[in-house]
């Protein structure tokens, strides 16, 4: 379980958000939505302590991740798989090695076991044939899927997706949405999906956290969101519906 309590963050004079509190239960999928630049990526970087808040806490299974000592903090970090906004693949090594990377350093698996696990992850995202490709030869959608394979290879308890569908064609986006659901169901993963794609929210999320005006403006279930009369949230949702319906 992840609890975010009264979190505030600014960069110098720029207040990103303040007093953000919500809770993510196990096996739940929470979507974090909001306009570009509202601090969605900054928020998830607080959850695994890549960034430190000005005030407030993030509790991971009850322990304050920002207060842990270095070794403990890293153990907590390894509970998370992260798909970064730009995939963040290592460009000096090929696709297979990207997925194998965490296994090589953090497990004592033999070369055979590594191969098996990597190929299994790649099969999950339908990229077995691309294992030997250099990452620079991959398309944007393929890069996301490799990023996904790398994020799940250590079988994380939590997984955070930063805009998994942005910049993809509708069909590939749909495939990614299905993958997210698959991970959540088959692997019992708790998911946090950052997105501004409402279609994706409706498809994958149980709950929604809406960041607006430098704070958490609304939090609740997807059903409640559909019937909410929160003005900014409605504006945000309808703006996307126009996009979907054209």
């Amino acid at each position, binding site marked *: 379980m992840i609890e975010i309590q009264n979190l505030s963050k600014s960069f110098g004079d720029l207040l990103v958000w303040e007093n953000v509190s919500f809770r993510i239960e196990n096996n739940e999928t929470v979507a974090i939505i909001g306009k570009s630049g509202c601090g969605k990526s900054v928020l998830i*970087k607080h959850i*695994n302590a*890549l960034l430190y808040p000005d005030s407030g806490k993030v509790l991971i299974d009850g322990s304050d991740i920002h207060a842990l000592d270095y070794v403990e903090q*890293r*153990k907590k*970090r*390894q509970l*998370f798989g*992260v798909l*970064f*906004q*730009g995939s*963040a*693949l*290592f*460009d000096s090594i090929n696709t297979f090695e990207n997925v194998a*990377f*965490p296994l090589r*350093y*953090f497990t004592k698996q033999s070369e055979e076991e590594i191969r098996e696990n990597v190929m299994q992850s790649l099969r999950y995202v339908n990229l077995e044939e691309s294992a030997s490709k250099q990452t620079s030869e991959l398309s944007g959608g393929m890069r996301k899927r490799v990023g996904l394979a790398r994020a799940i290879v*250590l079988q994380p308890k939590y997984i955070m997706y930063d805009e998994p569908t942005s910049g993809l064609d509708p069909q590939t986006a749909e495939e990614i949405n299905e993958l997210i659901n698959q991970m959540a169901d088959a692997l019992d993963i708790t998911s946090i999906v950052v997105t501004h794609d409402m279609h994706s929210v409706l498809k994958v999320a149980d709950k929604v956290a809406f960041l607006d005006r430098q704070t958490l403006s609304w939090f609740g279930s997807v059903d409640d969101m559909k019937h909410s009369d929160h003005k900014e949230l409605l504006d945000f949702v309808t703006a996307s519906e126009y996009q979907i319906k054209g």
Partner: protein
Amino acid sequence: MHSLNELGKYSSLLYQALRSSTEFSTYRKNLFQELVKVGYDSVPIIVLTGVFTGSVMTLQSAYQLQSAFIPLSTIGAIVSESILIELAAVISSLVLAGKVGARVATELGTMRVSEQIDALESMGFNSVSFLVVPRVLAGILMFPVLYIVASIFGIGGGIAAGFFSGTVPPADFLQGARMYFYPWNVVFGFVKMFVFGFIITSVSCYKGYYAKGGAEGVGKSTTDATVLSCIFVLLADFILAALLL
């Protein structure tokens, strides 16, 4: 104020590198790769710089000292001593600030802005000991080796230039070089290169590690890295000369 802030961040990066050096054994493979990139890959450019520095110095000294009263061996002495004390270290380092420094800053800067460093951290790596430690160690270890290469080819270039231009016969050159050879000069050269290797790699790691703002930001941090490396190398050269000579 701004530069104080930078100095603080730079020292804290070095402190983290030092503190995490125990974990470093996990990342041995990285050190080996860096030794090759910093050392072996720089040999051609260092040979080239060495040969030209030595030969130009010989030709110029021969021209300036054209006189019946000065023995030709003096030219060998001047050239080889200047190379060992100053030129093999400083000119090589200025060239390496461009070659090694720019590469390191670009590599780390690209990794920063494309979130690869965040990815490392989120997997549980210590990105400082993974990226910074091997690069700085490679600088400290390989720069002195490159100094030897630069010195040999510098003096060799001097001898060759003297011979082919007909100004200084090799025997005279070598006689002068031997007469004024002080092992201390070589020690001094080593100390310098050790320091310069540290400066160039650590400054470039720092600039790359904290790069921000996309491709433009990486470009800026690379430029900053080479310019700052050059300035600090020259400053350190002055300070070391004042302290040790």
